[in-house]
């Protein structure tokens, strides 16, 4: 059998990633594919780095191809393996570590490098560029510790970096050489609106500002401008442009101009060597946006499959991905002497629209504040449509051409089938509609079939409108389950945004995340309250009115409106004096029923609301604290008698259970949490169906988690083995904190674990000591504030005593 041809790819960015997808579709069997990538990770969506920087997304959200994708397609990916040499005569490449690999065909996709201006101080620690995930991670860690940042360059990347750093709480100044922001994409009026919007989020903008030097001796301390102004900064980001990465191609003797020369088939000057992406130059043009790279990817895949295809250059449009800022530009937006323009402004709403016309055809578009018609204008521009007939109204957009009061989807409805909806991926309206008619009924499925909205995401709204147009009521936007009827956002998004935007009260969340109800509902308010308690343990004041009644009065409501009260009995151990105190309470308040619970403690049922403070007071005096039998928090730690008594006991399971309960009680969690500690594998405390369980063995302690024995029944998963009480406490509290930070409200540990994967949790807690210790530390910090007996606080401070009052009304002499 003829062995497969070897296809080697250098670089694993967005362009080759897309090319390989096409190749897998049209010619999956032809090549044995090997990729070498300098970055130590799989292919991710570089465009989405800005939302990661601002905290709106995380790395996992932006992965394009996970490890399993490569395995599935039998593609070998060498991460962290830069190629340092290409031998074109003998057809092999060499990595930095000396590994060689033979190829039949080679694809170069090395992307580009950020330009660093060689001013004095440019090589100081703290000066960085913005290109890959490592850069984002560095910026995030600096933002945690330092407060001042300067971004040099007010273009697309610079502004996204500035917005991200500012969202992370830094004071950011943008220093820009030209007299207005984004001068390559925007005219001055739009740039001024943009400048205002950036200033409104606290970002300082200096235009016509030329950097003379970067200050500092062993690290950055600031920058000095040519006019003498100095700006303090612990972080300087240079975002002044990019340069195709061509060194490798050059040293291999390929023809290189500004980028690597390619023909219409993406072939370089060397037979069998192809190139695509930001590293190439095609007919004198180098590109720095993904849309053209995706066009190249299609052509190269066809070329490699030996089909004919031609790349003939691309028309570009720009959008800025700073949330809350809508701008769009395309074509020749500055215009020349003989061009015409149409402008509308709506100052109140911050809207600016400008069309540049030549012979009644649109040649340039700038939209600020309302970009809903961008696809329509861009379509007229690309097709060079004669607009004489609609010239007087064209500026108002597609919807206005028909019924001026049309509904919001009418702009999309009015687009011709060939109109491009997704600029990044070049997907037109008819392609999306075909997918929808073929059964795609969610944003996700349209994305996976057509790629529309899968890159920078700014056309998501348009795609959703197409879904609504075709499917009407049937279309439920966002398969992702919204938290409740008041928002489109899911739990994970809300948690991330609370953190990213430093939202510290429920009202702030409702405002900033555009809740559609004035004060939330019974579903979202308790969830938000928990997320805030968890995120800002020291700053957030628990909102009692957003808690379910049980957590508001620290007792469980019963069907007749009375309450049950369960004091803690640490590890299920009690004493004569405790039992006597309970008996006294039962007598004094005439408690109708006393019951031993399934959680190894005693429940007093049928207590009237107005009696609660008195009951708690008596229990408190006897030394009891609340058992939180009502809480989305730590409930019970069940134990067995263990080594102290039992003939099979291997460790003191009772003492360990008591210690865990004393350390963990009082913490709030997404849903209730129950633990158990058994003294030997006979497991009398039923530890293997708990949220967290410990089984003592001769050699130490087996840790278990993610069991269930309520609505679902499920045995636990093994977390790992540890040797001492101290370690049990550390590992268990770290696991609990990880769950506290990631769990969705009302999601028990086993459901959370299924969602984020058992293996990932094991890895973070068992293998990654730094992560574990950080979680454990955050848990103990939060406990400093959370661990107090709510009964004591309520009775001592007479706090919100009105909650319990029931006074009779009194007659007054007012007549109706």
């Amino acid at each position, binding site marked *: 059998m003829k062995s497969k041809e070897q296809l080697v790819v250098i670089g694993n960015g967005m362009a080759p990633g897309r090319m390989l997808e096409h190749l897998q579709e049209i010619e999956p069997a032809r090549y044995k594919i090997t990729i070498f990538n300098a970055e130590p990770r799989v292919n991710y969506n570089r465009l989405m780095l800005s939302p990661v920087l601002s905290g709106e997304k995380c790395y996992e959200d932006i992965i394009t191809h996970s490890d399993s994708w490569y395995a599935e397609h039998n593609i070998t990916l060498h991460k962290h393996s830069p190629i340092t040499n290409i031998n074109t005569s003998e057809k092999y490449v060499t990595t930095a570590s000396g590994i060689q690999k033979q190829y039949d065909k080679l694809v170069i996709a090395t992307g580009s490098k950020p330009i660093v201006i060689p001013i004095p101080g440019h090589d100081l620690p703290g000066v960085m560029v913005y290109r890959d995930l490592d850069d984002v991670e560095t910026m995030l860690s600096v933002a945690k510790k330092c407060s001042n940042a300067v971004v040099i360059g007010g273009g697309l990347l610079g502004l996204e970096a500035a917005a991200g750093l500012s969202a992370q709480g830094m004071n950011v100044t943008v220093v820009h050489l030209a007299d207005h922001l984004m001068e390559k994409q925007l005219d001055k009026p739009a740039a001024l609106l943009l400048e205002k919007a950036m200033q409104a989020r606290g970002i300082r903008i200096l235009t016509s500002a030329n950097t003379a030097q970067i200050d500092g001796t062993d690290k950055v301390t600031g920058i000095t401008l040519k006019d003498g102004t100095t700006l303090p900064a612990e972080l300087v980001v240079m975002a002044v442009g990019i340069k195709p990465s061509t060194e490798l191609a050059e040293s291999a003797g390929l023809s290189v101009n500004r980028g690597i020369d390619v023909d219409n088939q993406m072939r370089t000057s060397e037979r069998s060597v192809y190139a695509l992406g930001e590293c190439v130059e095609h007919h004198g043009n180098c590109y720095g946006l993904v849309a053209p790279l995706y066009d190249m990817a299609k052509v190269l895949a066809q070329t490699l499959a030996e089909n004919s295809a031609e790349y003939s250059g691309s028309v570009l449009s720009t959008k800025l991905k700073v949330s809350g800022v809508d701008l769009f530009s395309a074509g020749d937006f500055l215009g020349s002497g003989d061009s015409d323009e149409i402008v509308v402004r709506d100052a109140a709403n911050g809207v600016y629209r400008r069309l540049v016309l030549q012979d009644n055809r649109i040649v340039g578009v700038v939209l600020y504040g309302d970009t809903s018609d961008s696809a329509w204008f861009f379509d007229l521009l690309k097709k060079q449509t004669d607009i004489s007939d609609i010239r007087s109204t064209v500026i108002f957009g597609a919807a206005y051409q028909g019924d001026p009061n049309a509904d919001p989807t009418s702009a999309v409805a009015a687009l011709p089938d060939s109109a491009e909806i997704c600029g990044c991926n070049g997907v037109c309206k008819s392609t999306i509609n075909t997918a929808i008619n073929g059964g795609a009924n969610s944003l996700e499925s349209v994305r996976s079939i057509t790629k529309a909205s899968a890159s920078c995401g700014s056309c998501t709204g348009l795609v959703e409108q197409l879904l609504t147009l075709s499917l009407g009521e049937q279309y439920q936007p966002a398969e992702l389950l919204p938290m409740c009827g008041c928002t489109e956002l899911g739990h994970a998004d809300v948690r991330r945004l609370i953190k990213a935007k430093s939202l510290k009260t429920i009202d702030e969340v409702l405002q900033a995340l555009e809740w559609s109800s004035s*004060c939330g509902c019974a579903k979202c308010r308790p969830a938000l309250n928990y997320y805030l308690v968890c995120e800002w343990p020291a700053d957030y004041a628990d909102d009692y009115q957003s808690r379910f009644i049980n957590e508001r009065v620290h007792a469980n409501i019963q069907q007749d409106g009375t309450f049950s009260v369960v004091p803690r009995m640490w590890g299920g151990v009690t004493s004569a004096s405790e039992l006597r105190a309970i008996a006294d309470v039962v007598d004094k308040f005439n408690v109708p029923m006393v019951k031993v619970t399934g959680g190894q403690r005693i429940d007093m049922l049928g207590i009237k609301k107005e009696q609660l403070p008195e009951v708690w007071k008596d229990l408190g005096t006897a030394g009891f604290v609340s058992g939180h039998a009502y809480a989305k928090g730590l409930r019970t730690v069940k134990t067995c008698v263990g080594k102290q008594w039992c003939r099979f006991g291997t460790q003191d399971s009772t003492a360990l259970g008591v210690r865990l309960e004393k350390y963990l009680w009082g913490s709030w969690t997404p849903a209730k949490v129950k633990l158990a500690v058994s003294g030997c594998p006979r497991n009398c405390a039923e530890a293997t169906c708990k949220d967290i369980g410990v089984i003592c063995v001769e050699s130490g302690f087996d840790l278990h988690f993610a069991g269930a024995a309520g609505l679902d029944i499920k045995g636990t998963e093994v977390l790992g083995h540890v040797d001492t009480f101290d370690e049990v406490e550390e590992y268990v509290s770290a696991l609990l904190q990880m769950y506290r930070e990631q769990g969705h409200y009302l999601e028990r540990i086993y459901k959370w674990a299924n969602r984020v994967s058992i293996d990932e949790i094991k890895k973070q807690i068992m293998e990654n000591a730094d992560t574990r210790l950080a979680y454990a530390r955050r848990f103990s910090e939060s406990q400093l504030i959370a661990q107090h007996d709510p009964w004591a606080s309520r009775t001592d401070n007479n706090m919100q005593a009105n909650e319990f009052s029931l006074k*009779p009304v009194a007659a007054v002499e007012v007549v109706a």
Partner: protein
Amino acid sequence: MSESSHYWYRACFAAEIPRRGSIRVSHGRLKIAIFKTAKDEIFALEDKCPHKGGPLSAGIVHNNCVTCPLHNWDISLESGKALGADKGATARFKVQVSDDVVMLYVKKTPSLSVV
């Protein structure tokens, strides 16, 4: 029942009611929940859910309704009616606030006398 059998009763101070919360008062056997919304509007309903009698005063208040703590029915504070698919209504009382004093218009003789 004639209107003249109703009188204005002084119930509590508006400041005593937590915003988005409630306070309970009694009138003989009758329990009344007085609610304050996020916009400081005040409403009074019998503290008894039309479903199975749950104490509405213990519910979460949002917009102009309260969610019963027992089985999550939403009850309108303005009309006392169950919202959505659920059917039923709870008694509501006229409210007047002057100088921070909340007054309720209720039947003069408690329907059942105090035990």
